[in-house]
């Protein structure tokens, strides 16, 4: 790198992928500026809770906390929170980026740009048949997770009681032609099963029914984990995605209409609570950003990999669904590629 071009690498997005990419580039002595639109770093992954049961279930939530702590102690990485990109000019390793922070516009030069814009959870009200947003006791897995993380307990939103019988509906917003999401979000099966195991560990009296299409594996120890789930008497696996959730306006109890292949009939089963395993969609704000940077979308609707050699990189789940583990690995590998690009100029 020549001196006159010792501009920092600009990382857009302060979620787990952006944080790891910044930390890794810093380890290689590359100056970095990390931009986050929210008031604090961490993004979506920082809102997950530990999903250990008797043993660690490899959810990687603790790794996010550790990386957040690492970057908060790292004063040499410039971190701009509450800042948004408003314009990009220049090209090929010498970008001029306009930033808006608290109403003030400033300009920043960047040697390379890493987009780690992240994802949004699928907006569950889009699947009207499940009644999210209308029926009180239909929640998303994220809502349930935040109950556990921030309130330390699970409860029915209607009456605050512990639900005894919970249905987990998979593939909400994934693998679904009716809403145009023709991809698997890759994380929800393992995610929901870990959540079930963690809840069953904390409340052994709670029973869970897992309603799914195909169970998607997640990494090296998934086989043993899945076997443990299958052996757990409190977890019922039914290969069927329900057609509708009904509720009683008096008791707020729920009935779920599904095809039960075990019994060979369509049934309406009562549940205290329904949890929707919402999939991933590209973060809303990533689209205008992609326009500014001249990035396209791939056929699944995530950010396409930019042409190599122009100093723009895409990392983490905004490039396609990834769990925390794979987002971190991807961010690390992106850091190596960025460094290589800077050296090769």
């Amino acid at each position, binding site marked *: 790198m020549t001196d006159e071009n010792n501009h920092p690498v600009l990382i857009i997005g302060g979620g787990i992928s952006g944080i790891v990419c910044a930390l890794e580039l810093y380890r290689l002595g590359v100056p970095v500026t990390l931009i986050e639109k929210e008031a604090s770093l961490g993004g979506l992954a920082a809102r997950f809770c530990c999903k250990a049961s008797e043993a660690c279930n490899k959810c990687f939530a603790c790794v996010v906390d550790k990386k957040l702590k690492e970057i908060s102690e790292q004063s040499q990485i410039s971190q701009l929170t509450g800042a948004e990109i408003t314009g990009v000019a220049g090209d090929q390793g010498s970008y001029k980026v306009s930033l808006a922070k608290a109403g003030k516009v400033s300009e920043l030069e960047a040697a390379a740009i890493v987009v780690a814009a992240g994802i949004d959870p699928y907006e569950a009200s889009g699947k009207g048949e499940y009644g999210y947003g209308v029926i009180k006791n239909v929640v998303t897995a994220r809502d349930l997770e935040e109950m556990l993380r921030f309130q330390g307990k699970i409860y029915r939103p209607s009456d605050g009681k512990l639900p005894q019988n919970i249905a987990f509906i998979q593939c909400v917003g994934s693998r679904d032609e009716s809403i145009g999401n023709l991809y698997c979000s890759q994380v929800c099966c393992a995610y929901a099963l870990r959540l079930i195991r963690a809840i069953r560990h904390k409340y052994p009296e709670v029973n869970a029914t897992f309603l799914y299409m195909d169970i*998607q594996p997640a990494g090296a120890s998934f*086989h043993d984990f899945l076997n443990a789930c299958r052996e757990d008497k409190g977890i019922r696996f039914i290969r069927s995605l329900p057609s509708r959730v009904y509720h009683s306006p008096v008791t707020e109890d729920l009935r779920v209409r599904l095809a039960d292949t075990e019994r060979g009939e369509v049934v309406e089963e009562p549940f205290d609570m329904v949890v929707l395993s919402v999939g991933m969609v590209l973060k809303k704000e990533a689209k205008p950003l992609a326009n500014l940077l001249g990035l396209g979308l791939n056929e699944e609707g995530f950010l396409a990999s930019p042409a190599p050699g122009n100093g723009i990189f895409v990392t983490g789940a905004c490039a396609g669904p990834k769990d925390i583990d794979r987002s971190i690995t991807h961010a690390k590998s992106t850091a*190596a590629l960025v460094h290589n690009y800077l050296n090769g100029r």
Partner: protein
Amino acid sequence: MYQKVYESKATAPAPINLKPEVLIIGGGIVGITVARELAREGVQVVIAEKGETLGGGVRDLHFFYDRPAAVQKWLGDLIEVVEGAGNITVLKGAKLKRLDGQLGRFQALIRTSEGRERTLSPSAVVVATGCITRPAEAMSDGGRCIGSSEMEKLLAESRDLPVAWKGQPVKTVTFILDRTDDDIKIHTVNAIKLAVILQEKGCQVAVVARDLKVSASGMELLYRQARGKGVLFFKYDEPPVLSHSGDGISVEIPDMTVLRKEERETVSLLSDLVVIGETFAADPETQELCRVMKLRTGAGGALMEDNPQFLRVMSNRRGIFLAGACRFPQIIAESLSEAHAVVQEVKALLHGGVYTPVNPVAEVDPPKCAVCYTCVRLCPHAAIGVERYGDRNVYSAPAEKNGDTLWQAARVDPAACFGCGICVAECPARAITLYQ
């Protein structure tokens, strides 16, 4: 009751110089990718490949599921780059016989198939030995029941001609998934990828699976494409029954798409060929390698990180990294992402040319050591050895093997110590302290 665990000490352990030299064990796709990337950064790389060719398991692949390129051409180009690079040495028929020393001072003894021996002193070692595949045993005689890699080969060789097996035309093919390896998505990816090609060549293909593992970029679309082309998909809870039927194999499976049990019929798929993906297993030679390198293995003998969450791609020994199928079989894109993560870790380690121990580091007080080897055996990071000293209390270079001055004591290598404190807790003589 908590005791004060750390002692503070004025003198920090000395920094260790690291030369940009890396040894990679395994010349598969992960090993050669790591080699190419590190060599670009000016690192001297040695690849020790036990076989006579580079490429590993990817040599059995002919088609990507997500792009039209030919796998062997892509692999060949990559191998050419690696074999032509000035700062990459490829040793074929090579086996690691010994690995002594620690980070920055590794001494690796490699024996090649011609019986030649080479000693290397790499700063870091990357283990990318891959895994082995075993043909799945579906039927006793095995005829007409082939592995996924044989099907790839058949299709690659048939080019534009109709598919034939042992001179006979192939009209119907059934893929059976999930008899083993229910946590590996490679089988689903390969089956759907090959099903699309076969269907396009005029065959009727069925895929029978417990769970279709489409959790890879683009797979749901490929699955839809396959159904659009007429590939039949059946899901089972109980594995299908196979029997010989005329010249082919009959695969019997209940049709679970019919809800009412009494109306559910058993479908019989008459198949010219049945394809069952090979089972992935840890390489027995990797087991031997782990003994030589003092590396930890996990379930089924696969290599395992010291801490799969916090210390991803890092082994239980500092300076030794793992990636690819020796850890867990994944699709190519995922293995390559791991390979690049290893590149990043190695670059970060070598950056600046020195390693300064940062953790709390254990230290043995030599006069108190009874040389019982408890700490040596218990250390999960192979950081402790027994060294000879010239005299009690004298922490100097090991003395000559001279009866008068020989004194032994355990010594923790600060570069290799993770500061876990196991040795401190277990030392019967209370001779070990953690220093911050």
